[in-house]
């Protein structure tokens, strides 16, 4: 711990004219502050610094720095000055630059205080400062872009101290005045490598300052003369940003550079230069590159947003290198159009494509933008062969193409099982009111349990997108149905559709004689899209004798409890208490214990604690207790 000498409180007040007594008192509380102490006295000073007039505060803070307060206290006060200080605080800060104990804290403040006085102080302090602190002062002069420091910095950049050389060159790059740029040129001529990177920064700063011509000149010099890849890349980027299309010759030349990083960067920068001429130039380079280069170029072409690049990207789907084929397929997800649809579906369906390319093709089919892509998918489904058709049908579902629903309805009658199954799945995502009658008809007609299940799900989805009242057809069909299997299926549809008119039927079916129908009604209510049937299921679980039905009802109640709701925690805990009491098997009790921490109340904690003594659920109970104890406390 570092401490300074004795505390001399009165000096502070006496040395400041018109000192604010509150701040004076607060500062007195800080004098002996050290890093291990409570920060309340610091807060008191900070509050006053925020609220009192800055000019007045500044003088008191500056006077504090002349005292023999602890170094931690002075560090704190310097931080305050860095925020509100002006040139008035500079003399005392400058005097601190010569001491190893205080040079850093003083510099932090000087770096942030506006005006020329802090810069004069830093320049003056450079010679007197301890050696370790000099790079810091140089860095600050760079951050502040002090044009008067150029001569001193140029001298330091030619010294034998590598750290100082780096700092000084970097500072010259930041300053980027004509003198600084000239100094950097001289340093480059002397072979000072730090000057190369600094020169790139200098060129950027010239451009930012509005001196575009000088910036271009410097970028061109660096691109032409430097053998360092990083410098050339920085220069090429500057040329691309400032010159656009005019930089194309340099960028194209760099595409054949022996350094792969320069090559990759040139492609990336060309991508940002707009215009079909550049696109053509890039396409011309494609065959000349190695496979990794083609990967980069194909991606860059896709990212240009120029439709004239799409055929070249599509052609790369047949590249000899597998990684290029994958990159081209992925690129079509970004740039692909309606003309890419069938090709992508063929790749996705082909057993000769590698897995990565097949996956990429599916993602591209799902994510290519444009309504024309949707139309192309719909019109390609009919004529396609089985494997390709399955991919197109899948994509129609993933994209939610409503207009594909009628085509999909015809495909559910396909002789090929794979197509039928894919079409049913897709209809779950697209079908609406218009498809309800046909899907209901399919469900009633099929003899296959698997297809009944498929049509059941598609019908449920279609109903959920239909206006209220559309489920009346399903209720009527249920009442007319002559097989239990169909009735069970329709009950599932009613539950999943969640339309108000079917709820009474599901409720009354809980008292049906046929256990399969009761089971279906429980499952239907479990699927309900909100918690409306929760109490119904709970009450049913309390009185039913069939143990399977009771388990299903309890699980249903727990599932419905998870729906978002405004229900108070206490009511949710009451439900969980009831389920806990009724449950005969550990699984349902574990499910209760898993949900309890979501309702952090004392009652919930009590339920969990009560279960700790049951060996079958003790671990889950202990976990719930731990979580609840944290949150209830």
């Amino acid at each position, binding site marked *: 711990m570092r401490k300074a000498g004795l505390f001399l409180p009165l000096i502070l007040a006496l040395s400041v004219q018109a000192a604010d007594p509150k701040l004076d008192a607060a500062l007195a509380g800080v004098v002996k502050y050290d890093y291990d102490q*409570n920060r309340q006295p610091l807060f008191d000073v900070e509050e006053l610094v925020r609220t009192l007039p*800055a000019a007045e505060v500044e003088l008191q803070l500056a006077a504090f720095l002349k005292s023999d307060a602890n170094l931690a206290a002075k560090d704190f006060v310097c931080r305050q000055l860095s925020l509100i200080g002006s040139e008035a605080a500079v003399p005392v800060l400058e005097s601190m630059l010569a001491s190893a104990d205080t040079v850093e804290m003083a510099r932090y403040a000087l770096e942030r205080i506006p005006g020329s006085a802090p810069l004069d102080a830093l320049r003056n302090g450079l010679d007197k400062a301890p050696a370790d602190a000099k790079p*810091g002062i140089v860095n*600050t002069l760079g951050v502040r872009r002090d044009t008067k420091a150029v001569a001193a910095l140029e001298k330091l950049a030619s010294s034998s101290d590598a750290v100082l050389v780096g*700092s000084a060159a970097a500072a010259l790059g930041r300053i980027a005045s004509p003198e600084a740029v000239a100094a950097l040129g001289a340093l480059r001529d002397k072979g000072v490598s730090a000057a190369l990177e600094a020169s790139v920064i200098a060129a*950027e700063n010239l451009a930012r300052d509005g001196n575009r011509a000088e910036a271009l000149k410097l970028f061109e010099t660096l691109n032409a003369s430097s053998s360092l890849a990083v410098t050339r890349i920085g220069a090429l980027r500057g040329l691309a940003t400032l010159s656009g299309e005019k930089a194309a010759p340099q960028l194209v030349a760099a595409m054949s550079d022996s350094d792969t990083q320069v090559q990759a960067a040139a492609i990336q920068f060309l991508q940002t230069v707009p215009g079909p001429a550049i696109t053509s130039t890039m396409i011309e380079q494609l065959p000349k590159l190695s496979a990794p280069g083609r990967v980069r170029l194909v991606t860059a072409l896709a990212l240009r947003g120029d439709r004239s690049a799409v055929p070249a990207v599509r052609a790369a789907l047949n590249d000899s*290198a597998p990684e290029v084929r994958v990159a081209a397929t992925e690129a079509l997800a970004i740039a692909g159009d309606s003309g890419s649809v069938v090709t992508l579906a063929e790749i996705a369906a082909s057993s000769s494509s590698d897995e*990565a390319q097949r996956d990429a093709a599916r993602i591209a089919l799902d*994510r290519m933008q444009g309504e024309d892509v949707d139309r192309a998918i719909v019109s390609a489904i009919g004529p396609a062969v089985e494997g390709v058709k399955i991919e197109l049908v899948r994509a129609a579902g993933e994209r939610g193409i409503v207009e594909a629903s009628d085509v999909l309805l015809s495909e559910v009658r396909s002789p090929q099982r794979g197509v039928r199954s894919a079409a049913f799945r897709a209809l779950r995502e697209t079908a609406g009111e218009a498809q309800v009658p046909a899907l209901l008809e399919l469900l009633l007609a099929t003899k296959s349990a698997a297809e009944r299940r498929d049509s059941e799900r598609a019908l449920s989805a279609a109903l*959920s997108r239909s206006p209220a009242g559309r489920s009346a057809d399903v209720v009527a069909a249920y009442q007319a149905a002559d097989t239990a299997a169909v009735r069970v299926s329709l009950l599932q549809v009613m539950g999943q559709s969640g339309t108000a008119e079917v709820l009474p039927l599901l409720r009354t079916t809980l008292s049906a004689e046929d256990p399969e129908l009761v089971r279906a009604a429980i499952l239907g209510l479990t699927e309900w899209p909100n918690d409306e049937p929760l109490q119904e299921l709970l009450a049913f679980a309390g009185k039913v004798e069939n143990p399977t039905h009771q388990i299903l009802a309890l699980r249903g109640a727990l599932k419905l409890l998870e729906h978002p709701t405004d229900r108070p925690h206490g009511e949710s805990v009451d439900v969980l208490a009831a389920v806990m009491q009724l449950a005969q098997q550990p699984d349902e009790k574990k499910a209760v214990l898993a949900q309890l921490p979501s309702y952090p109340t004392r009652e919930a904690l009590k339920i969990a604690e009560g279960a700790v003594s049951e060996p079958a659920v003790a671990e889950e109970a202990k976990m719930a207790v731990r979580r609840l104890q944290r949150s209830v406390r």
Partner: protein
Amino acid sequence: MRSRITRRAAAKLGLAPLFVPAAALGLNGSTPASDRIALGFVGVGQRGVNNMRSFLAEPGCQVAAACDVDQNHLAGARDTANTHNGNKDCRTYHEMEEVFARSDIDAIVMSLPDHWHGIASVQALQAGKDVFGEKPLSHNWAEARAIADAVARYGRVWQTGSWQRSHASFRFACELVRNGRIGKVTRVEVGLPGGHEDFDGLGHRNLPEKPPRELDYNRWLGPAPFAPYAPARVHRTWRWNFDYGGGMLLDWVGHHVDIAHWGLGMDDSGPEEVSATGEFSTQNPIWNTPVAFRVEARYPGGAEVLISGGHDDIRLGAKFIGEEGWIWVDRAGLEAEPKSLLQSKIRGGETRLYYSPGHFRNFLDCVKTRRAPVAAAETALRSATPAYLGLISILTGRTIRWDPKKEKIVGDAVAERFLSRPMRSPWRL
């Protein structure tokens, strides 16, 4: 007679790279060891090792180096890598500059305290490395801007650890918002955690101590102002001190505020006005960041973003509120009103957002293709800006006006001083 030197022996002698960098070879995901993307891990504490495990689960990459100023961290990371690889190829380093200098390393995975992000990232980018860096982008706005500039200048690939962008539910929520499913967005409520979590139970050890032998504390401090060592100051809980982090606000801004920006389409813009309040605790002499905060940000177009931490009224996650409904998204899932929104599909003619197959995979793929990853540096800078400005508002007690095009504070010279911080000698960007 000419002696034969194997590539590995040559590497040990400093004559040849141990790995051939993937940039120099053909690239694909299932290739020989010499063709994999070689990764150097800088900062291998808990987060660094977690990141290492995530990368090791991906095909097409290998861990070539681990670097840390804490020898205990380093040993754990080396063992993790070598056990996975079944060899001893992962070399260890004390100074990151040595890792950056290795020509056989393609990319750096950086999991350092925030106060190191700016320097380490710019150095790595300048050395020609692609970087996976943790969120927030950096400790303060100026250093974050320097990182984004360096990524552009050197044409490098940068992925920020804002992994929620690679998660389907977050992407879907943002696509729904961007396509007007909830109408014009008027407000986004972002709930973040509050407090100072004492991760390793070392918060009480906040008085100056002698640094442990395994830790190079001076290097750990790096560009931050001098302060004596204490366990509560360093590993993991550094984030509760302004010299190294920015509390929960800066720690989490790269997640839920990042999602708010994605949904609002603010990846190249930002707030125009930020007003914030914070509550502080004096209990721990080191932990000086706010334990509770509320940041109100007004965006171009009129949307408001309320960021709240340590208060109960805003639920964790991001809730987009529009004139025709709302969507809430968090790691726990998605909710919406009307609920039917969650069943809707993004149509062909609508806006699709960047598809990432997985955050680590996306980075590795982009190293090969040179496409910008889903959480690019410029994006991360914009996402973190509300926190940088929010903290400035808390510290100055003033409303901050911000020009998101020029990226300048408007009419407040004092507030402007907080956008950057001086660095301890000899450190610089």
